[in-house]
């Protein structure tokens, strides 16, 4: 057996499926005002924050769970969840990594995320979120020197209330849809990034999300603000233990780009997808929205979605500033009984705005994949263009691949082009690769990587390698 085969065999099962046995502090089960007050209290939040949460909760009470999506799921009992869970050792926040619970350090080491100083050679600043709290943020000092704020959002609420107050809920208001509103009411932690005017962030910022406790929903909130002329590249990774029950993950991510600013947001999502028979796995219902507020601003989303039992998200760009640019690059892979309903929304409001959508979907096994997207060019968005390409690859006749684009053009000076294809890996390509000595699985891996290349190229180096491997692994057992 060659090395690659060995590696694949090692990785065949979800390698992040372990759970860490750690003592937790949890909010009482269920969702009510007391729980929200409990969360706000334990995070020592100011009164305006609690008000924000309670306002969202009032709204949440009148909303109904949406049901228009393609993947159906059994009704979630929102009263049967824990909305806050944190390692006990985090009650008093440790001052440095040395004080951090060794069990937590061990967990992140196992996940391949080195938190300790000496292990940080790859030069990425990491904010590690464990269930409902952020446990560690690295490289803080260096970033502070440049005036960059990179910290857990709970800290930002206390230390930078003026920024949080101004921007939190400005892209995803508390009155948004069901899951976003739920998040606004009960969000626990997440990252906060502020890049001051004219600063180019010298390193990749990264958040690593980990769900550990059972029966816990993870509701994190990320807020990134790029001030005038700044640049930031932000990465996000996620894993969870293997459990038989489905767990809910409903995050909100808000990006704000002011004049001439650029935000690049990359996600490699590898939540536990459930076992081969579709038991367990994460429900990944995430709201991600970016606002190109200023002129010449740019927001670019790149996502590699391989995990989760159900992925349901549409990272969007609101192109409000003139000449602003929105981009969306996505690879979504579903295998076994996974389901994904993902895509993007590009809302053109400003003049000369441009957007580009490249989406690659691969479905195998008994999985189901849907691309759903909206391109809306308003009557004021003169001279705007959109280009959309969504390609799907099917492996086997038990899976499904669907494309549901909504295209609205209200401006005669703007152009929209949309293309989509669905096909399978051609026999010729397979034959060609096999003839040159690759086994069928390797051949498929190679072809799929080529199919995804346009998107993989958009990822930062370290992530691209990881993602490429992930693509191969996710399709294990789908050939033949």
């Amino acid at each position, binding site marked *: 057996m060659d090395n690659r085969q060995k590696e694949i065999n090692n990785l065949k099962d979800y390698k992040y499926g372990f759970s860490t046995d750690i003592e937790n502090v949890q909010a009482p089960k269920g969702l009510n005002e007391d729980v929200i007050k409990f969360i706000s209290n334990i995070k020592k939040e100011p009164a305006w924050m609690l008000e924000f949460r309670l306002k969202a909760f009032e709204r949440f009470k009148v909303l109904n769970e949406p049901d228009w999506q393609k993947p159906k799921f059994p009704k979630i009992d929102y009263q049967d969840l824990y909305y806050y869970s944190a390692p006990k050792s985090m009650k008093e926040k440790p001052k440095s990594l040395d004080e951090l619970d060794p069990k937590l350090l061990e967990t992140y080491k196992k996940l391949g995320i080195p938190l300790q100083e000496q292990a940080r050679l790859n030069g990425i600043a990491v904010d590690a979120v464990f269930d409902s709290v952020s446990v560690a943020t690295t490289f803080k000092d260096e970033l502070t020197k440049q005036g960059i704020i990179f910290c857990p959002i709970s800290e930002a609420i206390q230390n930078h209330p003026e920024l949080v107050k101004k921007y939190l809920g400005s892209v995803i208001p508390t009155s948004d849809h069901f899951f976003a509103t739920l998040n606004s009411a009960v969000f626990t932690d997440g990252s906060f990034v502020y890049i001051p005017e004219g600063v180019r962030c010298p390193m990749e910022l990264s958040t690593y999300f980990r769900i550990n406790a059972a029966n816990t929903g993870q509701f994190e909130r990320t807020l990134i603000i790029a001030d005038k002329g700044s640049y930031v590249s932000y990465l996000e990774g996620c894993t969870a233990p293997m459990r038989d029950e489905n767990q809910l993950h409903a995050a909100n991510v808000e990006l704000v780009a002011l004049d001439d600013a650029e935000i690049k947001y990359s996600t490699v999502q590898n939540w536990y997808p459930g076992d081969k028979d579709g038991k367990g796995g994460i429900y990944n219902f995430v709201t991600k929205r970016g606002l190109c507020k200023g002129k010449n601003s740019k927001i670019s989303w790149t996502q590699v979605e391989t995990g989760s039992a159900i992925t349901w998200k549409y990272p969007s760009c609101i192109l409000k500033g003139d000449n602003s640019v929105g981009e969306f690059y996505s690879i979504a892979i579903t295998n076994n009984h996974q389901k994904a309903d993902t895509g993007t929304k590009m809302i053109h409001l400003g003049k000369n705005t441009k957007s580009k959508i490249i989406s690659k979907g691969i479905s195998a096994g008994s999985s189901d994949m849907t691309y759903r997207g909206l391109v809306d060019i308003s009557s004021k968005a003169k001279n705007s263009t959109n280009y959309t390409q969504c390609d799907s690859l099917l492996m086997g*006749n038990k899976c499904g691949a*669907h494309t549901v*684009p909504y*295209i609205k*053009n209200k*401006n*005669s000076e703007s152009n929209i082009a949309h293309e*989509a294809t669905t096909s399978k890996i051609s026999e010729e390509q397979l034959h060609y690769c096999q003839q040159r000595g690759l086994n069928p699985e390797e051949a498929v891996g190679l072809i799929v990587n080529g199919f995804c290349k346009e998107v993989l190229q958009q990822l930062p180096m370290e992530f691209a390698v990881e993602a490429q491997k992930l693509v191969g692994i996710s399709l294990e057992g789908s050939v033949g």
Partner: protein
Amino acid sequence: MKEQLHKDFDNSIKNLSLSQKDIEIKKFCLDNFIDKGFPNRKEEDWKFSDLNQIIKKNIGELSFYNDQASTNKVDTSVFVDGLEHNKIVFINGRIEKIEFEYEKKDQIEIIDQSETINEFKNSNSLSDLNNAFTNKSFKILVKKGYQLVKPLIIYHTTNSKIWSKNINLRLNFELDKDSSLRLIDLFNDKSEKNFLNIFYNFELKENAVLKNYKVDKFDNKNIKYSFNNIDQEKNSISETFILSSGSNFSKNEINCNLNGVYSSAFVNGVFSLNNDKHHEIRSIINHLTENTKSYQLIKSVLDESSKAVYQGKIFVNSDAQKTDGYQLSKAILLNKESEFNAKPELEIYADDVKCTHGSASGSLNEDSIFYLMSRGLSYQQSRELLINGFLLDVVEKITDSEIKNLIKNMIGIKE
């Protein structure tokens, strides 16, 4: 509206000799319709065209009762010259004439189906309305191996003598093995602001060929909904061409089930709109077995504050391997008030398929205009030439040369 519906329903039932059971069914459909009302934007299929609002805004209150006892005078001036054809004439929703003068009488059977009500598989509240109020419906059966010599033109005419604000029509066609039919729907509306609700059902047996051309050309204030259900068996071919231009609002729905191997469906459409017109084509092609093919091409030219919508769906069942599905929609927006919305959808459960869709919308290409103007054409001429060429592409897809020429003349497209 509810009272009016009940009153008009009772009136129309009185004049029909229906069995108690049929009345029950009609009543059931009426109740369904009252329950659901006209489709509105909350329904996914009507997201871009809120019929409820459109009817409210353009017509207001509807009435439904049509007196079918008195005949209407057939105005022969609307008949198409220079093309010999068979005729069915609807005037204000009443069938005045069915005439197959060029065909062998024993090869075509016209069956009065007024007493039987067939349910549509793809039902919305409009099919309930249609079921409740259609009081004369026929089935036209083309017998085995017979190919109609001349095309059949169905004239849909309305005039000022129209009885109510709503007309419901229904026709069924069965094309037996190896038969063929060329069918033109020609709309000629002289009435003001009515709602036409038309349902056609086609059954295509083995090797049957159906060519259906819907021409809504003349400016009118009516609101139209037309639904075609086409069931196709082995080797059969259906070709649908839609010219969507005249009415204030029009929605054409095509639901095509490719049940037999090697069957194929073609849907081609042209939107040519101005003023405040709002038109929609929605097509659903269901590939249900292997080796089936579909091809769709929709082009729109939108001027003033007109709005066109194209919703096209290709569905591929898990048994339907070797499916070939193609769909392309293109739009030119001539005015800053005009709007084009598209939802080209693919739903695919089989892996060995080739399905493609594309959609593009934008303004006339300035470079092309510059090119033509530099060769001596005026701006207006260049614009017309480009639009002409853009639409000609679709008209050229019409496989019947006789009808192609007729339609070209009607639109005023030059080669």
